């Protein structure tokens, strides 16, 4: 038997397969397809302090092997989340990670402060990288200074581990990752979506009401995989790889490049059973390759 568990230091996962925020609802939507207890964990939809309307539709456009979304973090806020959702999730034996959002650094801290008082949360994923909430995709993860500032502030408040989710829309991802590490982040989630757009040629207007959106799906895998490899060379804290993962092979590419765990996003829509299949594929791969613990493959890329 292969041991699929991975130890992030701040959190032990039964396997490295998580789900990406915004693509797995609040978990419960997937119970017809996935036994949540089999997952390494799942990350729920981004939460602001207050409920949030999100962007007007159209919010989605398909592109070549990809999906652009401009949901704009529609959500129910921490209060309703704590009262309505958390109780429904407390009996699952898997790591529940909350994706934390904020209009400014203080809101991130406020969300964490509120959630710190709730049970059943394993860690926070600090979403400082959503390209859909401000025009032109502005977000803290675009500079090391703003990254450091928000991580530092939240880390000081939080009683739980912090995973900082970075934006891929930067010149030097390593610099940003180092800033998150310096700010005290326990882990790095790499990465969010790529700022993108699509044009309706007949109407000569953007296909998304928000003009810009974030590109996800298989199209982006080669880009984020590259960043995971670059960051893994330089940071000491564990990396969670996210971007275009649809198969066990994709997950392995990320882990070999340096990710300690991975999140599955868009693929959950295409095949809601993807996570289960990936876990099976990882098991098969390890068995065939004679690997006793999947941790043995993390960061083993021969260059």
């Amino acid at each position, binding site marked *: 038997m292969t041991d699929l568990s991975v130890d992030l230091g701040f959190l032990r996962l039964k396997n490295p397969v998580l789900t990406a925020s915004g693509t*797995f609802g609040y978990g419960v939507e997937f119970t017809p397809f996935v036994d949540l207890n089999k997952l390494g964990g799942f990350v729920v939809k981004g939460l602001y302090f207050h409920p949030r309307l999100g962007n*007007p*539709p*159209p*919010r*989605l456009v*398909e592109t070549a092997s990809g999906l652009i*979304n401009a949901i704009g973090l529609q959500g129910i806020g921490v209060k309703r989340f704590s009262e309505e959702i958390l109780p429904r999730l407390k009996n699952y034996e898997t790591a529940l990670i909350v994706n934390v959002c904020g209009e400014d650094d203080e809101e991130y801290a406020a969300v964490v402060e509120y959630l710190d008082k709730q049970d059943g949360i394993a860690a926070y994923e600090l979403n400082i990288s959503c390209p859909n909430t401000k025009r032109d995709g502005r977000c803290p993860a675009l500079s090391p200074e703003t990254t450091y500032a928000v991580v530092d502030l939240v880390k000081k408040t939080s009683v739980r581990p912090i995973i900082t989710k970075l934006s891929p829309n930067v010149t030097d991802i390593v610099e940003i990752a180092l800033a998150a590490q310096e700010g005290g982040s326990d882990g790095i989630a790499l990465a969010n979506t790529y700022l993108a757009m699509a044009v309706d040629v007949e109407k000569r207007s953007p296909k998304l009401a928000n003009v810009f959106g974030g590109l996800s799906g298989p199209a982006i895998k080669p880009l984020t995989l590259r960043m995971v490899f670059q960051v893994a060379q330089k940071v000491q804290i564990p990396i969670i790889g996210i971007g275009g993962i649809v198969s066990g092979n994709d997950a392995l590419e990320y882990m070999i490049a340096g990710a300690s765990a991975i999140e599955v996003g868009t693929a959950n*829509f295409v095949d*809601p059973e993807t996570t289960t299949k990936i876990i099976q594929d990882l098991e098969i791969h390890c068995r065939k390759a004679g690997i006793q613990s999947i941790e043995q493959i993390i960061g083993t890329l021969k260059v």
Partner: protein
Amino acid sequence: MHKEPKAPIIHKKTWGDYCLLGFQAERLAAEAQPGQFIMARPSDSLHPLLRRPISIHSVLDDSIEIYFQQTGIGTTLLGQKEKGDFLDIIGPLGKGFHLESSLQGKSVAIIGGGRGIAPLYFLAHRMRNLGAFPRIYYGGRTINDIPLRQKFEEEDFEILLSTDDGSFGFKGLVTALFQKSLQEFSPFRIFTCGPEAMMAKIAQIAHDKDISSEFSLEAIMGCGFGACWGCVRKLRKENEEEWSKICEEGPVFQGDQIIWEKEEL
């Protein structure tokens, strides 16, 4: 709701770019209600990526039929499947038309435009079973866009046909045909599926005549089962205005819930 990764296709019929596929899916057939839909995967390639929402057109014992128009890459791929191939689907999804026993003995209008007829065949059958008297209005741009007319006729449904170009039936929009017929016909309720502008017009008529109405809406869908928040639309609700998920709360909504775009009225 469940996934059926390999539902075998058992028959296929095409008329131009319209396609009718029948496939075996026992559980789905047992659960499906008119107005509900499935999410069908166009192919197992990484492009096109997303599933496509397609209404349940009919239920026969342990099989399901879908009827769709090949308008883009996904529906074209679906239309290339043949008898013996498999469909990868999720369903039944969403909330369908309201089938209340109070409809028994009542006349109802079922109005479909183009491929919008898809969910209405299933509905017409259930209406009949319920003891209601459905009258079907079925319109298209030309005679080629209303290929299901014979099916309805053969099954003795009362059906009125229109084409925009007059190549068959009433010449003009199906909305005009419907409006005209209201001189001699007073439906208890209206059920509609079709292009947005057509539905908006029907909504106006229904509102003016104070007839209750239900509409099956379309939206671009990422998942079809409430997980992505991609399919939202603003709906009129008690006191709050919020973006509601078409896939979960709909696709069928009451006329007075729906806010139609101004320019389309």
